[in-house]
């Protein structure tokens, strides 16, 4: 057993047996560039959730960005370089967990498109994609933590982020986890599945349309009567919070689902 453990630690057992990875639930945490810069508490919360669930969490120090800005802007070359970098950093992990639907969607759905003409890379990227999960998806499907955080006496509403919902099928997972938080009450808002208007560079190229879409989202949030809107993607968070505060709402909180679940709010 000790030998096994050392081999895993040195990261040398990758091809020999994936079973030993399973044993230790070695999870690579891709925090994403936006969490890293804008709201590190989400990264820490995700780390805590995974560790509490018994995972051995690896945070590759060289990680930066998944390449999505380049990919969505039509710059395949930039996207490809960053995708290759990410694959190298996380390939040795049994699982890759991402506290963002859009970045997890980039890895799982779009990396294969980035490498569509490179059979060798395509095979690698597909293997990685199969092991990549959005955080709440991982916590409900794979890690299944026994306990939950301390109570949170608040009424929340959940905004389904587009990529998580439509590329990965993340819908029930965060709701199942939130339902276990003592005191928390979830009310659904109108059009919870409609885009908030972020869309990456769309938000600065078409600021007026983007803001108009955010405005509709904020109106639905306020109409739901929730004290906080909970979601799973940084882009939507910045967009919704920015618009809420601008329209004078300083009360409605905007929280990442990891923050709520880890009790770091």
């Amino acid at each position, binding site marked *: 057993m000790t030998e096994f453990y050392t081999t895993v630690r040195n990261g040398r057992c990758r091809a020999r047996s994936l079973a030993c990875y399973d044993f230790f639930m070695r999870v690579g945490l891709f925090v994403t560039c936006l969490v890293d810069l804008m709201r590190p508490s989400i990264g820490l919360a995700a780390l805590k959730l995974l560790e509490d669930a018994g995972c051995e969490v690896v945070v590759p120090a060289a990680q930066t960005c998944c390449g999505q800005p380049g990919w969505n802007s039509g*710059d395949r070359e930039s996207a490809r370089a960053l995708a290759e970098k990410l694959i190298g950093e996380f390939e040795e992990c049994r699982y890759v967990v991402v506290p963002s639907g859009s970045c997890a969607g980039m890895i799982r759905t779009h990396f294969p498109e980035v490498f569509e003409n490179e059979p060798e890379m395509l095979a690698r990227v597909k293997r990685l994609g199969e092991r990549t999960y959005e955080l709440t998806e991982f916590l409900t499907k794979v890690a299944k933590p026994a306990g939950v955080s301390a109570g949170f006496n608040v009424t929340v509403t959940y905004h389904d982020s587009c990529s998580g919902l439509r590329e990965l099928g993340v819908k029930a997972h965060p709701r199942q986890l939130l339902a276990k938080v003592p005191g928390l009450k979830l009310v659904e808002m109108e059009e919870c599945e409609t885009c908030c208007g972020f869309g990456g560079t769309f938000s600065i190229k078409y600021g007026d349309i983007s803001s108009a879409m955010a405005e509709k989202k904020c109106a639905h949030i306020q109409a739901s009567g929730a004290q906080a809107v909970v979601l799973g993607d940084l882009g939507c968070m910045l967009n919704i919070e920015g618009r809420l505060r601008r329209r004078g709402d300083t009360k409605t909180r905007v929280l990442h689902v990891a923050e709520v679940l880890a009790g770091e709010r």
Partner: protein
Amino acid sequence: MHAQSMHFKPRAAKALANETLQSNLEKFNSTGFTALRAKAVAEFGPELFEKLRGEGAAIRDRGLASLDAWIERFEAEATRRGATVLFAETREEACELLLEVCRRHGVKKAIKSKSMLSEEAGVNEALEAAGVTPVETDLGEYILQLAGEPPSHIIAPALHKNKSEVADLFAAKHRAPRKTDIPLMTREAREVLRGHFLSADLGLSGGNFLVAETGSGVIVTNEGNGRMVTTLPRVHVCMTGIEKVIPTLEDFSILLRLLTRSATGQPISNYVSLFTGPRGRDDRDGPEHMVFILIDAGRTGLLGGAMQEMLRCIRCGACMNHCPVYRAVGGHSYGWVYPGPMGSVLTPSYLGLENALDLPQAATLCGACSVACPVKIPLPELLRSLREEQVERGLRPRRERLAIRVWSWVAQRPRLYALATALAARFLRLLGGRNGMIATLPFGGEWTRERFFPAPTSWRTFRALYAARPKRLRRTR
């Protein structure tokens, strides 16, 4: 139709500032087709409908894979049943063919049922220039013909107008007392149109599908005007795109189930008209002459290319009904015949990428359109491919391309990246001030015009915080 697709941004800004339009759009969004479609799908059974979507996509793909053969089959069958089949390579040629038909049959007045292709080809302008009076008989199109406006939606062309605007228009154009009761307004329009129906020499329809095995054209309508247009006048011309040819009637039955549910949430439309050849010896009604004009106008250019999947489109409008951008800015912002996600693919494909620079960009790639599409067109992927083509052809602003490249260059150098983000966190946090909200974002002015930009919540990045953890709690490989 004169294309304005290069002016999306200013047109969208105008639409956002137009309060009447916004309230009309709001009404459409809250009571419109999306809810009706959702109900229809729920009644049909969501899983069954998913299966049906797969079948629909497969049928369209099968047809497109050997489109040339199916077109020949259609031509042979339609000709055998007494119709004439003409082909036009361009929109101009299509109009010329139509005018030729008008000349041959001495046509003075043409009644029309709804056809987006006639908008695409500019048929009304061409007819008027040749001295033939075109009369739109679809109520929405009729309203727009009176108002001199183009449609803003492919199946609900006048949704940008409200009842009171239409009441004013009718009062002015019909020279009748202003009415605001919808049945009365409709009756007034019907009375005007009745005369046109009876006095027209030619009926011009579009075609939702052309069935190859029987040589039939199909239109799917709700008002009944389509049936009058295709049966009353001496001559019936059906004008449609070559990609509308489908192999069999069986295929049609599946596509019909998808089309009406996706479009208006109806299990079937009020009228489904199949027309096969002109009036036969024993028929009591129908046109004496029946002409199909099949138009290419850029469609073959999409075959075999990255945009081929777009040719599957059956024009239901579900993508725009579900598009949050369309719902915010309306159809006229897109500047040409086809609005919304399908338009953002079709317009640059047919008119040239350089003539619709904003359209592939003006999308959040949220995916709502592709989930609703009855034939599973991967619209966000197609838009993204168009963006890639824009970059390859140097059609994007230099600053934008440079910004992405610099970002990628820095992100490939973790140490430099860590330094840059550490500085950025401090800088942005300072800008955010006490309430943590940035009111004017440097290099991102459009963001903060009507929004704040939330500042970072910590002076230090996640990587810095993680590195500060005790060593035994850190795993970096």
